């Protein structure tokens, strides 16, 4: 070995440092100055399967943002936390805010956890984008100045399928029986859906509150057979939807089903054999609107399976947040809130542009009526729906499926 003199080593070292400085330092600076996406989602528990898709979509959104050069010249970094219940959600939200110095919070699927996180975010005056939970309460009685909703609310879901059902004559005079998940989301959805039923002239035969994570619905289905409703209205969530659908089919699916919520993942898990009827959807991977097929393709390439509505929500939500940062040239939450409230428009892969309502921060967007596909024509385990029509139709106001100020009042606190 050639003996290396100390001087040579020093020169080499200095040279390397200078090179690193020229090439590496700017990158190091950007990473330290990164925009931190504080992501919260349940990866375990009855909403776990949805959280998994949410996480994958969040990763994809952040990777694409960085591939495009970051935002405001800064790298985007995803810090994702598992939130299996509201208590943990609050702790993780605080951790993201205080320890990780998140630029904004985004995510969550459980309404109970989401409401809790929104209070933490409001106290910290940090922007929080809801991409997964539906309770109207979060857009109404418990709305927050720093809370915005990309996900649809219970009224949107109810009215999307409800208006279509009313047109088809399935509501006036019809007898409905409800099965409801016994937590914040379910109670809220029952309130909204039973009210809608009453307004449209339907008959409410009753409601059963069912604990989340219930494994056996046979007793409830036996009850339904005795009650003989015209429709069974499902207000269940996550894996409970799957379990119920399978067992309902097992008992012969005696009455037509409808529901106040439809997440594609639980329906995939039930399998097309267990499904029937018409449902509402926030987004489905068969959508042909500009941007959607490309998004679907990119997701499939990364994950070997198509995205669902939850993945769409996370992806679009992160893009909205980053676009808001780029357009307002600021990462300060107050600036972002004002920017979103001004009605900044966003492409949410549905053809029609979307924007946030200034008084309740709900994203105004299209939803869809979908129909369970004929099994013979289904190409794979994910091909379960056909899109029937967008709601509202092109040309109709996006306010059509939204709760009105009278229905769901919200008083936003000052910034």
């Amino acid at each position, binding site marked *: 070995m050639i003996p290396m003199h100390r001087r040579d080593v020093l020169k080499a070292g200095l040279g390397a440092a200078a090179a690193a400085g020229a090439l590496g330092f700017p990158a190091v600076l950007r990473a330290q100055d990164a925009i931190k996406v504080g992501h919260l989602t349940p990866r375990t528990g009855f909403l776990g399967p949805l959280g998994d898709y949410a996480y994958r979509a969040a990763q994809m959104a952040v990777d694409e943002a960085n591939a495009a050069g970051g935002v405001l010249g800064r790298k985007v970094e995803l810090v994702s936390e598992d939130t299996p219940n509201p208590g943990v959600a609050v702790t993780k939200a605080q951790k993201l805010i205080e320890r990780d110095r998140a630029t904004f919070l985004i995510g969550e699927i459980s309404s109970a956890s989401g409401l809790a996180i929104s209070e933490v975010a409001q106290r910290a005056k940090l922007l929080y984008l809801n991409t997964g939970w539906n309770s109207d309460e979060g857009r109404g009685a418990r709305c927050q100045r720093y809370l915005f909703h990309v996900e649809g609310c219970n009224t949107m879901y109810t009215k999307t399928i409800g208006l279509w059902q009313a047109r088809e004559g399935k509501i006036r005079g019809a007898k409905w029986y409800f099965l409801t998940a016994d937590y914040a989301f379910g109670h809220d959805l029952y309130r909204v859906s039973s009210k809608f039923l009453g307004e449209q002239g339907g008959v409410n035969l009753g409601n059963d509150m069912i604990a989340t994570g219930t494994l056996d619905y046979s007793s409830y289905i036996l009850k339904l057979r005795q*009650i003989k409703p015209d429709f069974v209205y499902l207000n269940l969530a996550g894996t409970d939807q799957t379990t119920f659908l399978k067992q309902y089919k097992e008992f*012969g699916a005696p009455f037509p089903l409808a529901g106040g919520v439809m997440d594609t993942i639980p329906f*995939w898990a*039930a*399998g097309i054999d267990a499904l029937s009827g018409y449902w509402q959807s926030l987004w489905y991977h068969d959508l042909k609107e500009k941007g959607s097929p490309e998004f679907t393709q990119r997701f499939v390439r990364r994950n070997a399976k198509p995205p669902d509505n939850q993945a769409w929500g996370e992806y679009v939500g992160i893009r909205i947040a980053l676009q808001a940062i780029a357009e307002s040239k600021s990462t300060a939450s107050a600036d972002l809130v004002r920017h979103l409230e001004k009605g900044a428009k966003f492409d949410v892969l549905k053809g029609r542009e979307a924007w946030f309502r200034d008084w309740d921060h709900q994203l105004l967007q299209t939803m869809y009526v979908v129909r369970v596909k004929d099994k013979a024509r289904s190409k794979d385990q994910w091909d379960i729906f056909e899109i029937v029509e967008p709601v509202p139709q092109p040309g109709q106001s996006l306010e059509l499926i939204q709760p009105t100020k009278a229905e769901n009042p919200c008083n936003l606190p000052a910034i």
Partner: protein
Amino acid sequence: MPPVSVPILLEHLANGLVVGAYYTTLALGLSLIFGLGGVINLAHGAFYALGAYLALETQRLAGFGGALVLSPLLVALIGMAIETAFLRRLYRGDPLLGLLFTFGLAMVGEQAVRIIWGASGHPFQIPEALRGFVTFGDFVYSRYRLVVIAVTALAIVGLWVALEKTPWGMVVRAGTRDAEMVRALGISLRPFMTAVFGVGVALAGLAGALSAPLAGIYPAMGNEIGIAAFVVVVIGGLGSFWGPVIAGLLVGLIRAVTVLFWPPAAEASMYALMAFVLLVRPRGLMGERWVEFGAQ
């Protein structure tokens, strides 16, 4: 809610018995493992989930019937391997060690399942031949559930025969009652403990395989049912045979009645029953008085 007539009540009670038979299968395995080894198997739910996932895989090779045989067998083999390699070292020490180990095993099991098969649920359909329902007059019932009750009844009876009518069973029962004496008679309980652990978790795996068409397959499926199994065992009496059988059926019946009259309390009803039993008869309905135990 229409008035509840006797036929309707009977229909619900019959359904409750089916659910109960299901809990019994799980609880028996748990009770057995505790009775002989003094091990509280907190990983019981994980073996239940494993049974379902293995049924998913073996069904492709051997059909559903084959899966019902192969899956519990594989679960038993895995269980016995774990018992031989790790668990048996912990019998001598503080009982808490065994408990901590199975607790950790439960978490590792769930994550392993998640890594191997993914975090999303897997669809699992009732096999063609078992679909549809049978009618007895006014009473309509799912054919598959009748199969479930038949298979679980077979498993329970099979276990009873093995315990009561075979020499192997005699040693196991004696070891449950007084391990010291059995050892004094020159019989090593170690291989029996391994076998019992295997049988116990095989029952859990069987219950999991049977549940797959009913409730789907997803990584967290073992958690809730694992807790339910414990509740049933505590009500019935740790270490007994008939205790979990009676307790399982009772839990199923009470749950069915609660759904009929007060649905939100349905899932909580078993815990209320457990609290009541613990207050009135802490050793469980048919549990033995607590003695020193363990297959050291």
